[in-house]
């Protein structure tokens, strides 16, 4: 087991290293000198030179890459040119929006999808199964930003129940918390719908596979109620594919909210990167992308380890 974890860890670190090379050198060959973009077109050559020296742009590329890499290893992601604050501080500030949003969406989608998937599997082939899976097919096909616009039209423009966009931060006390949740509710629902549709389909097919097993028949034969068999014996054994998709969806939600953040004008991680790209604030782009890649690698690693814990056969086969 230790050997398995160490091997996966080493592969994860190599992946990160390769990703850092790609990110750094792709952004490095870009047209557009960050110093010139910061100072504007009319900057004097002296000022430009001074800023380039200050930002370290006059040094060889390989040295700058190593500096950046070892900085990140120490937890120093550099300073943003445009915000003049450390990249990590910016990320932390934006995560206060993106992380709760991702968690809300994930919780919503799980709460909808898993019961629907189990229910559909239990009623396999009947009209309610067909209906549930038909709705899931439609759910998968709906672009989340379009769904978001419809939600805004109904709940913000029409019923005036929820804000149409913007986020004023997590206030003080319960009321402040509620204001924050209210601002993130529509975005979370619009992110959750397509995810729930996918998750319900995966849960259903995993359950169907499990429900055909002998131990399910045994459990039923010894007189356990249907409901108990479904949840205790069925869901438990169907969890592996479900967990895989959940892991992937969480990773997607952290980075994939970029369009939804644009629909609702939310100051999240996606908007930070989007703005940083257009302002050529490369150190921010590089830092955020590396953190997201690290998050995805970590989630995959945890999912792999979960597999190995659940099913010892997987430890040697990879």
């Amino acid at each position, binding site marked *: 087991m230790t050997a398995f974890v160490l091997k996966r860890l080493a*592969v994860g670190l*190599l*992946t*990160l290293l*390769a*990703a850092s090379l*790609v990110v750094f050198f792709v*952004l490095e060959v*870009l047209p557009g000198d960050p110093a010139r973009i910061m100072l504007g077109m009319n900057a004097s050559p002296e000022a430009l030179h001074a800023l380039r020296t200050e930002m370290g742009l006059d040094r060889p590329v390989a040295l700058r890459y190593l500096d950046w890499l070892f900085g990140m290893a120490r937890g120093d992601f550099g300073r943003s040119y445009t915000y003049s604050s450390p990249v990590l501080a910016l990320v932390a500030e934006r995560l206060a929006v993106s992380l709760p949003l991702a968690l809300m969406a994930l919780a919503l989608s799980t709460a909808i999808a898993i019961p629907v998937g189990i229910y559909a599997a239990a009623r396999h082939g009947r009209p309610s199964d067909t209906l549930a899976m038909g709705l899931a*097919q*439609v759910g*998968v*096909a*709906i*672009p989340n*930003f*379009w769904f978001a*616009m*419809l939600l*805004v*039209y109904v709940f913000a*423009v029409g019923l005036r129940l929820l804000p149409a966009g913007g986020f004023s931060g997590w206030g003080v006390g319960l009321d402040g918390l509620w204001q924050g949740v209210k601002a993130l509710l529509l975005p979370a629902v619009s992110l959750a719908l397509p995810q729930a549709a996918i998750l319900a389909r995966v849960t259903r*097919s995993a359950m*169907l*596979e499990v429900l*055909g097993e002998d131990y399910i028949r045994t459990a039923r034969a010894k007189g356990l109620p249907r409901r108990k068999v479904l949840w205790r014996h069925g869901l438990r054994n169907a969890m592996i594919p479900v967990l895989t998709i959940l892991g992937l969806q969480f*990773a*997607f939600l*952290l*980075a*994939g909210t*970029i*369009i939804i953040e*644009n*629909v609702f004008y939310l100051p999240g991680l*996606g908007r930070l*990167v*989007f703005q940083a*790209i*257009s302002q050529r604030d490369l150190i921010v*782009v590089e830092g955020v*992308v590396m953190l*997201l*890649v690290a998050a*995805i*690698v970590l989630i*995959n690693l945890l999912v792999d380890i979960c597999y190995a814990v659940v099913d010892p056969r997987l430890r040697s086969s990879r």
Partner: protein
Amino acid sequence: MSLDSTFTPVPERHVLAKALANRSFLVGLVITGLVAAMALVSFFWTPYDITRLAVAERMQGLSLAHPFGTDHMGRDILSMIMIGARNSIAVAIVAVGIGMGLGVPLGALAAARGGWADEALMRVNDVVFAFPALLTAVMITAIFGPGAVNAIIAIGIFNVPVFARVARAGALSLWPREFVLAARAAGKGAVLITVEHILPNIASLLLVQGTIQFALGILAEAGLSYLGLGAQPPMPSWGRMLFDAQTRMAVAPHLALFPGLAIVITVLGLNLLGDGLRDVLDPRIRRER
């Protein structure tokens, strides 16, 4: 949605009969056919000329003259959606083409050679999969300039490892089979065996995956266009139409309704087609479902 690696090729004469009996396949085929026909017709005829702006007729509701209404510049929305279909289909098809063209040879090669080549390919795949796809596509188009071509590249790159993985898994399950062994015994090389025996037998897997990636490509293109990074005006695109509609939702919600429905119906049709194809072409999975 991953496909299993072991499967049995179906004799061809059963396929058509089976396909016609599969509801998912039929509905998907009809929808996809209609969308494709709509895009083709738009080359010869649209109800209105969308290059002519008619400000006096802007943001009209639904009428006999304009079944889907007109947009903020007085252009007929039905005509815009018809021409927008071209863009969505073209971007998604070429992105799938890039994915297949690069991914399938890589995957087949990894399966044929094994050893370090296989290991290297899988590790490169890991790296690409570790990138958040949507965010990276946004980065690529934002950096190299917005437009349909860069959108195709940005979406296509993420299709490559998907097809490489499917091709590799399919090929790996075929290499130990008797007919491949026989070909090896006859002295055929790895490339010839791959072309003559492996590729024809994994074609159905690739077709199913291609349909799924096609649908995902349409969604991705809509997202990029919505952010202003896809096809540039005056070329209409469904995502861009939604962006233009957003600020006018309160006054004219129909501006957002129809382009959105166009995306949903197209993606739904392709997904149904993909599911149907999988049921028809892959009896093993069908039994389990």
